[in-house]
């Protein structure tokens, strides 16, 4: 479909994901007259960043678990107004598994979703344009004991806390690398967990090179300072230049071993220290959800962790498909809001057949430029230890679903000649389980010494055969 074909229809836009990027895009487009269908897996809008406690928990102070609550309130109120006006149709608990181009007689897109939480019933929404705001999830690299219960992703601990108002345990270590660890540690401590160690592998010296970029983002620096102050108030011991080398326990984590890293990112012998805990919240950065874009044939940048390629208007290289937020490269909620707003302006103009006017989104564009530069700097500083893969012992399970060990992956490379992730998968089953490699891909690729590359998953989530059998035209 071309943009001119779209201009002839009275067009509707499907926005996939109701986090910051999807909301900003849906609201911007709807406020300019576009009919929007907003599909989201959650029971409430907000995505991961603004995940709300379940309504029935009747939380009177959900803001106690959140940063930038004022921004959320405005988004929430604007959404309510657009839904009331009939311009946004907000479909909750829709797990989109495929977006199909040239669907049906209309020639637009078919957005295929499973209805949650059962996910046995299906629904297809048609649209003339699509915005992918599928967000991201956490990257965790393998280490000894990382499959033990009580070892959770930092984001997962936060999601369970924000959504269910529960903690995984009482004594937590928060470890890994990246800006997410700070709010997670502060959140767990505020909710009553004893956070006995905050272990960041990056070293303050890693940030010094980026002083100018950091100084250009005073709001982000102030945000970090606020979290640091909260960690101090909760007496959370902060250790930098260290890493968790092992989690110990039988039925659940009982302790972790933490060790110092040298300037090359190798564990320094004789620095190991054991810390008793019943929870390890761990993360090594974020990954973009690119499945829907990949199936649509959108260009994906796979030079590092994969993300959807977009132009200055947040358009992908597939006509009628826009993308915004973490799916287009990790950069946090403020960047997602700016990208979503830009996409909304572009979509509203192009669906009316009018040339978009970049002046309309000049402020969002400046924010986008500044925050992309900021997160590029953070990304270099917060990189996992350079030699992490060497330190993954042969006996460590790297693919959690299929329980494939590092030794099996190494054998596939060294003895059987595998040189890419797909071959490693076919030889070892690593990445073939329930999660389809979403969790293990960076770990397996690191141990194998090959790039992650595009995943080429046909569906974005498991689909019951009964649903597939009912699809028209099959």
């Amino acid at each position, binding site marked *: 479909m071309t943009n001119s074909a779209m201009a002839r229809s009275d067009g509707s836009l499907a926005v996939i994901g109701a986090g910051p990027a999807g909301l900003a895009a849906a609201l911007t487009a709807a406020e300019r007259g576009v009919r929007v269908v907003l599909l989201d897996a959650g029971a409430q809008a907000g995505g991961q960043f603004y995940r709300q406690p*379940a309504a*029935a928990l009747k939380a009177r102070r959900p803001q106690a678990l959140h940063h930038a609550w004022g921004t959320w309130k405005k988004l929430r109120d604007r959404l309510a107004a657009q839904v009331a006006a009939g311009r946004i149709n907000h479909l909750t608990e829709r797990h989109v598994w495929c977006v199909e181009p040239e669907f049906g007689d209309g020639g637009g897109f078919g957005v295929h979703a499973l209805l949650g939480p059962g996910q046995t019933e299906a629904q297809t929404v048609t649209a003339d344009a699509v915005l992918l705001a599928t967000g991201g999830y956490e990257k965790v690299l393998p280490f000894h004991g990382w*499959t033990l219960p009580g070892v959770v992703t930092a*984001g997962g601990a936060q999601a369970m806390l924000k959504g269910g108002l*529960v903690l995984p345990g009482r004594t937590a270590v928060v470890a890994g690398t990246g800006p997410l660890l700070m709010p997670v540690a502060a959140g767990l401590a505020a909710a009553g967990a004893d956070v006995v160690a905050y272990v960041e592998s990056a070293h303050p010296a890693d940030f010094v090179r980026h002083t100018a970029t950091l100084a250009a983002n005073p709001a982000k620096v102030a945000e970090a300072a606020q979290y640091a102050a909260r960690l101090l108030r909760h007496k959370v011991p902060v250790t930098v230049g260290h890493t968790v080398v092992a989690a110990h326990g039988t039925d659940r984590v009982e302790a972790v071993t933490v060790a110092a890293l040298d300037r090359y990112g190798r564990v320094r012998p004789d620095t190991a220290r054991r810390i008793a805990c019943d929870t390890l919240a761990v993360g090594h950065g974020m990954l973009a959800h690119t499945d829907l874009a990949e199936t649509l044939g959108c260009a994906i940048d796979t030079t590092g962790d994969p993300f959807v390629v977009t132009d200055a208007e947040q358009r992908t290289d597939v006509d009628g498909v826009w993308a915004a937020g973490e799916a287009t490269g990790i950069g946090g909620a403020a960047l997602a809001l700016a990208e979503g707003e830009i996409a909304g302006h572009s979509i509203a103009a192009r669906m009316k057949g009018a040339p978009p006017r970049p002046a309309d989104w000049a402020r969002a564009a400046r924010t986008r430029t500044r925050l992309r530069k900021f997160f590029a700097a953070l990304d270099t500083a917060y990189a996992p230890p350079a030699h992490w893969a060497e330190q993954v012992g042969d006996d460590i399970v790297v693919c959690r679903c299929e329980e494939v060990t590092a030794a099996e992956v190494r054998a596939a490379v060294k003895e059987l000649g595998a040189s890419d992730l797909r071959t490693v998968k076919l030889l070892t089953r690593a990445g073939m389980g329930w*999660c389809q490699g979403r969790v293990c891909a960076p770990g397996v690729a690191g141990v194998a010494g090959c790039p992650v590359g595009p995943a080429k998953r046909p569906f974005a989530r498991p689909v019951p055969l009964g649903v597939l059998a009912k699809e028209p035209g099959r």
Partner: protein
Amino acid sequence: MKRTPLELAQAQPGPAYAVTVDGREIAALPGQTVAAVLWTQGITSWRATRGSGAPRGIFCGIGVCFDCLVTVNDRPNQRACLVPAAPGDAIRTQEGTGHDELGHGAL
């Protein structure tokens, strides 16, 4: 006594209701997912893997990793982090593929 997440968010859910975990009755709060109910009771693992029989529970917490699979009302392989609990739910820990205990045979 440290404060709880419910206190922090000033949550005032309706009265607790009963569900069972492997036949044992436990309390659940309205709105909580199966995983949140289990965590509240201090239960962090409810699945044994197909290969080594290793214990698993919540890992990603957002429906991506499928580590938290659980059997609810005889339906195996439900993601505990996504599925809301409901009064009377029979939650069962799960072995391997989750089908053996249900008499469907291995799939």
